[in-house]
């Protein structure tokens, strides 16, 4: 089949669904949708449609990035609006089928908005103002096309870049990628075109391309969503890279914690192969290339490029010193190009729309868009794609909707364990490689986690160091031993055993670890501690000098206390919820916590009816009135 024939076939498959006479229903079933119960919604729709003998079709799609609104359902009808419904539960499915699938009532009380865009344009929901701030390239099809059907991708313009690239000289492709200004999206930001050029020039017959899908940063899930929602764009990008550098074997290294992404990738590879987009003699060009999936076995350091190559070789993923660079001597000592999932996904767009178009987006040093995973205390968590240079403020407040429950913004953690915590005064920082680096954070893979007044910055630093310390591969002593020392000090501080000189010691250790470690993991490991000290030194001092945790987080420095005048005496919620039977009653029926038994799990506070709100946290624990103990009797 020629590519034009493949396109026609894809188009008719697409049209039969999207332009047919019957309504059809899109249901987001990426991991976050599933966690929110999307599969039972799919089942409910199928059951209800069968019961009503309705002609509508159900299509499982990926994630549009509005994770907090999942399960998300869109009903598309010929000659009418496509309407999205959020937080759908199986119980409302009959109403939706009756109302909008079969009837003409769009059930506005259940609706989120309408679905705009599509057919090659990025999909969006015009009723949500956040989309005005976004610029979706990689996410353009997410939540719209069926990731399990390659025809949907092709019908929306997919694989035409590969067909075009296979007719181009590799040098011309490199020139295009270089002048687009794209830098690697894995975090370090190395110019992609330059990397490809170096690999192409490297001597040797056998070369490899690798896609890094080992998205290990806790709090980041952009790659997962891209792979679960629109995997073909990544495969197309990898194939163009392989053609350009002259590789015939490719690998996608993906973490085993993403079973659904692996399943969808496997299916996508199989479909690409069946249509001749992969395998021997791709699209009749004479170029042959195949991709193998390698499942990671869970090691954060595997995301480092040299370490990842060792992991594919079946060895311990411990980074090595460079040079030689991987583009000269990588996997099995052969020249290798390794890029992130998102970097590859941009490639087809750059080929199709041109380098000038891409470089017109973004800032001087960082071109294009960036995909961020918004998590933490934001109102609308999920994915966002914005032009490089958008400010953190826009990202958190205009797209993320600000901090939930009326709490006050305290800090934003950006870049994962390698990144830093930035305070409110830094919110005007534009998100691009260079500005973030200057602020002490890094672009990293793109996790953005908002923290509010209830989050302790010392505890946050401890959390990241605990993570890094566990994940340090142990090769460099500065990282292996240094992070352990830093963690020990932070544990002391959060337990109220810190000394004021510890803060400067942490800074000194941090600088030495950063300077003395070989790979990116070690070099950036102290960032969370260093940035929290730089911007939130007062919190460290409160822990050390006053034995007080201002955010009421650090267990050793807080106590739960039941306000006697607020406690509704007849209520037993807290008593029943306490897992260690630490709550008793006074003669008057007022509940009292036995501080010696309390494990500070917080259950009593969670179950205390909001109209009483009698359970409070106090820091330091010495604030608990002594009378409480006496009352107990």
């Amino acid at each position, binding site marked *: 089949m020629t590519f034009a024939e493949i396109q026609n076939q894809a188009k008719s498959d697409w049209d039969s669904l999207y332009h047919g006479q019957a309504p059809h229903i899109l249901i987001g079933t990426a*991991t*976050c949708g*599933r*966690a*929110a119960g999307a599969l039972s919604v799919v089942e409910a729709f199928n059951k209800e449609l069968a019961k009503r003998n309705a002609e509508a079709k159900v299509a499982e799609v990926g994630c549009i990035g509005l*994770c*907090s609104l*999942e399960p998300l359902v869109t009903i598309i009808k010929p000659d009418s609006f496509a309407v999205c419904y959020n937080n759908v539960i199986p119980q409302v499915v009959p109403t939706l089928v009756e109302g909008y699938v079969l009837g003409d009532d769009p059930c506005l009380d259940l609706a989120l908005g309408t679905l705009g865009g599509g057919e090659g344009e990025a999909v969006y929901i015009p009723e949500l103002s956040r989309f005005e701030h976004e610029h979706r390239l990689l996410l353009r099809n997410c939540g719209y096309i069926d990731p399990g059907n390659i025809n949907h991708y092709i019908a929306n313009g997919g694989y035409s870049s590969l067909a075009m690239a296979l007719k181009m000289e590799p040098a011309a492709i490199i020139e295009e990628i270089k002048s687009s200004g794209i830098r690697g999206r894995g975090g370090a930001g190395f110019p992609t075109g330059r990397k490809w050029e170096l690999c192409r020039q490297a001597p040797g017959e056998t070369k490899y391309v690798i896609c890094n899908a080992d*998205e*290990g*940063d*806790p*709090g*980041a*899930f952009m790659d*997962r969503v891209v792979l679960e929602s629109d995997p073909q764009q990544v495969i197309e990008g990898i194939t163009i890279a392989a053609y350009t550098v002259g590789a015939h074997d490719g690998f996608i290294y993906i973490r*085993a*914690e*993403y079973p659904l992404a692996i399943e969808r990738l496997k299916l996508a590879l199989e479909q690409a192969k069946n249509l001749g987009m992969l395998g021997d003699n791709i699209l009749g060009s004479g170029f042959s290339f195949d991709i193998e999936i*390698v*499942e*990671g*076995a*869970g*090691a*954060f350091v595997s995301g480092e490029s040299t370490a990842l190559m060792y*992991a*594919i*070789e*079946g*060895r*311990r*993923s411990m980074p090595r010193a460079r040079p030689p660079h991987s583009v000269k001597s990588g996997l099995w000592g052969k020249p290798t190009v390794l890029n992130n999932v998102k970097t590859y996904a941009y490639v087809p767009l750059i080929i199709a729309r041109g380098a000038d178009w891409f470089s017109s987006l973004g800032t001087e040093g960082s071109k294009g868009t960036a995909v961020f*995973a*918004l*998590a*933490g*205390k934001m109102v609308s*968590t*999920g994915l966002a794609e914005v032009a490089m240079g958008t400010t953190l403020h826009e990202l958190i407040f205009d797209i993320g909707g600000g901090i939930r429950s009326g709490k006050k913004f305290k800090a934003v*953690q950006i870049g*994962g364990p390698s990144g830093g915590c930035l305070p409110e005064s830094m919110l005007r920082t534009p998100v691009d490689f260079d500005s973030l680096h200057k602020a002490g954070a890094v672009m990293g893979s793109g*996790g953005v*986690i908002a*923290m509010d007044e209830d*989050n302790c910055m010392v505890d*946050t630093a401890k*959390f*990241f160091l605990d*993570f890094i310390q566990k*994940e340090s*591969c142990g090769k460099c002593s500065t990282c292996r031993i240094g992070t352990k020392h830093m963690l020990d000090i932070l544990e002391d501080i959060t337990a109220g055993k810190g000394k004021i000189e510890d803060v400067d010691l942490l800074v000194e250790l941090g600088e030495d670890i950063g300077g003395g470690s070989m790979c990116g993991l070690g070099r950036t490991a102290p960032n969370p501690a260093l940035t929290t000290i730089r911007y939130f030194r007062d919190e460290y001092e409160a822990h050390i000098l006053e034995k007080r945790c201002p955010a009421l987080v650090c267990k050793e420095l807080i106590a739960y206390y039941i306000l006697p005048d607020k406690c509704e005496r007849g209520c037993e919620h807290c008593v029943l*919820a306490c*897992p260690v039977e630490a709550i008793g009653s006074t003669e008057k029926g007022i509940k009292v916590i036995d501080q010696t038994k309390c*494990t500070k*799990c*917080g*259950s009593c506070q*969670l*179950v205390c009816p909001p109209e009483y709100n009698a359970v409070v946290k106090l820091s330091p624990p010495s604030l608990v009135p002594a009378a409480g103990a006496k009352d107990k009797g």
Partner: protein
Amino acid sequence: MEELKQKLSDILKPDKKNRRHLIYLLQAVQQKSGYLSKEAMLAIADFLDIPGSTVYGIATFYNQFRFTPLGKHPVKVCMGTACHLVGGKLVLEAMARELDIEVGGITPDHEFSLDRVACVGCCALAPVVVIGDSVYPKMTPPKVEEALVIIKPVSQEQSEKQ
């Protein structure tokens, strides 16, 4: 050893007889048996013709591998950043308390095992617990008890104790 190799023959296939497939083989054996026994690791070493210490060295380097059996309902509590910020640790502690086992342990009836994981990528629904293949969003210590009771009703648990 021969008997075990026979049992693993669908995994230890000739096309996988290459050092680079070591991690895959460990994953496949763990998938089949739930954990990596010493015997299984030695069988893999023998199959690839490499020292047992190499296999053990690789297996202990990666977080995915476990050396004790997994419960019928493996419980994984996410300890990623987003989960940590909203009380993931309290959920882990509640889970350990309810199941009465340590992290990394298994209940005496082999029903539940408990592990912490770095991030399951469902940060928008934090804190998250994964039991079997199901993701439990927005967990709290009181919800831990509920989730466990649904999987294994208390009456059954009690009758087993008696």
